């Protein structure tokens, strides 16, 4: 059973996962808006800033650097936090694009995370990308939400019907939109992470040559480098960006190529 403690004036409730039930704690930030779900046996995030709902067994987090997806599967606390920081905005953007209000999106995101927690053991990366797997969970959660909303508010039946009976082309469109949001968010995250890791000179080579498309010779002059060194530096940075993307099971260029092959 997953125990939800929402604190303050919020309701208390519980969610039961049908498969391999696992206790979990849910943390709310002081402003009550953001939450993070952690399996019960993991340490809480910064306890000075987060409200802890439950927790009985202290455990230390592992230092092993797993990919984020592997880390989530193995319940690595640090990876859960990274996962939350990355995927909450992705889910929010996707749900807001589907017409949900911000507060509704927050509720649905919470439901998605609870479902994910219950099903994470069933994820098999050899069968599909994590992005696709999570999209399915998000889509089903959205449908559940639409069903609840339809039963509560007949006036919104038009919107609910659209969510409950998507045509194949709607589903394709939704997944394509999800992919774009996911890919852009992961890549931007990777760029932020790598920029903090590399020297300013290496980053300048990468940014000015590959993002801003400035001539290598011009960049080399400014940075007092050989033109070839611009590409060596840019290459190193690009490899790091790829490796961060890989942590999220996101191969940026393969995904791009498949888009191109579909003619988008």
């Amino acid at each position, binding site marked *: 059973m997953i125990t939800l403690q929402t604190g303050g004036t919020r309701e208390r409730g519980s969610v039961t996962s049908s498969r391999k039930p696992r206790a979990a704690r849910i943390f709310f930030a002081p402003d009550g808006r953001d939450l993070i779900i952690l399996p019960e046996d993991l340490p809480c995030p910064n306890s000075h800033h987060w409200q802890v709902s439950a927790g009985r067994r202290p455990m230390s987090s592992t230092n092993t650097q797993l990919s984020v997806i592997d880390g989530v599967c193995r319940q690595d606390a640090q990876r859960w936090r990274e996962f939350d920081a990355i995927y909450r905005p992705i889910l929010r953007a996707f749900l807001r694009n589907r017409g949900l209000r911000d507060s509704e999106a927050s509720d649905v995101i919470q439901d998605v995370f609870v479902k994910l927690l219950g099903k994470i053991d069933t994820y098999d990366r050899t069968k599909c990308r994590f992005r696709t797997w999570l999209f399915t969970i998000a889509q089903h959660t959205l449908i559940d939400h639409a069903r609840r909303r339809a039963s509560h508010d007949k006036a919104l039946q038009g919107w609910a019907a659209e969510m409950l009976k998507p045509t194949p082309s709607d589903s394709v469109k939704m997944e394509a939109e999800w992919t774009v949001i996911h890919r852009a968010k992961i890549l*931007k995250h990777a*760029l932020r992470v790598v920029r903090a890791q590399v020297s300013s000179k290496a980053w300048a080579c990468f940014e000015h040559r590959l*993002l801003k*498309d400035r001539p*290598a010779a011009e960049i080399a002059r400014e940075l007092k480098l050989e033109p070839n060194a611009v590409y060596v530096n*840019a*290459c190193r940075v*690009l490899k790091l960006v790829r490796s961060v993307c890989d942590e999220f099971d996101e191969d*940026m260029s393969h995904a*791009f190529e498949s888009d191109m092959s579909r003619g988008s």
Partner: protein
Amino acid sequence: MPSSLTCPEEAELLAVAAGEEASHKLRRHLAGCPLCRERLGKLAADIAMLKQVSPGGFA
């Protein structure tokens, strides 16, 4: 078979993927090495993706 048995460094391919002219030696190698053509295609796709997500630089 590639005309040169030694495949080029990634940085050399990146330069070509970014729009620099390939040397005669590199062109000959690429003509005979499908692996390097694939590497080049991947780099070009990476660059296209980067420009798509962060046009004009990364703020």
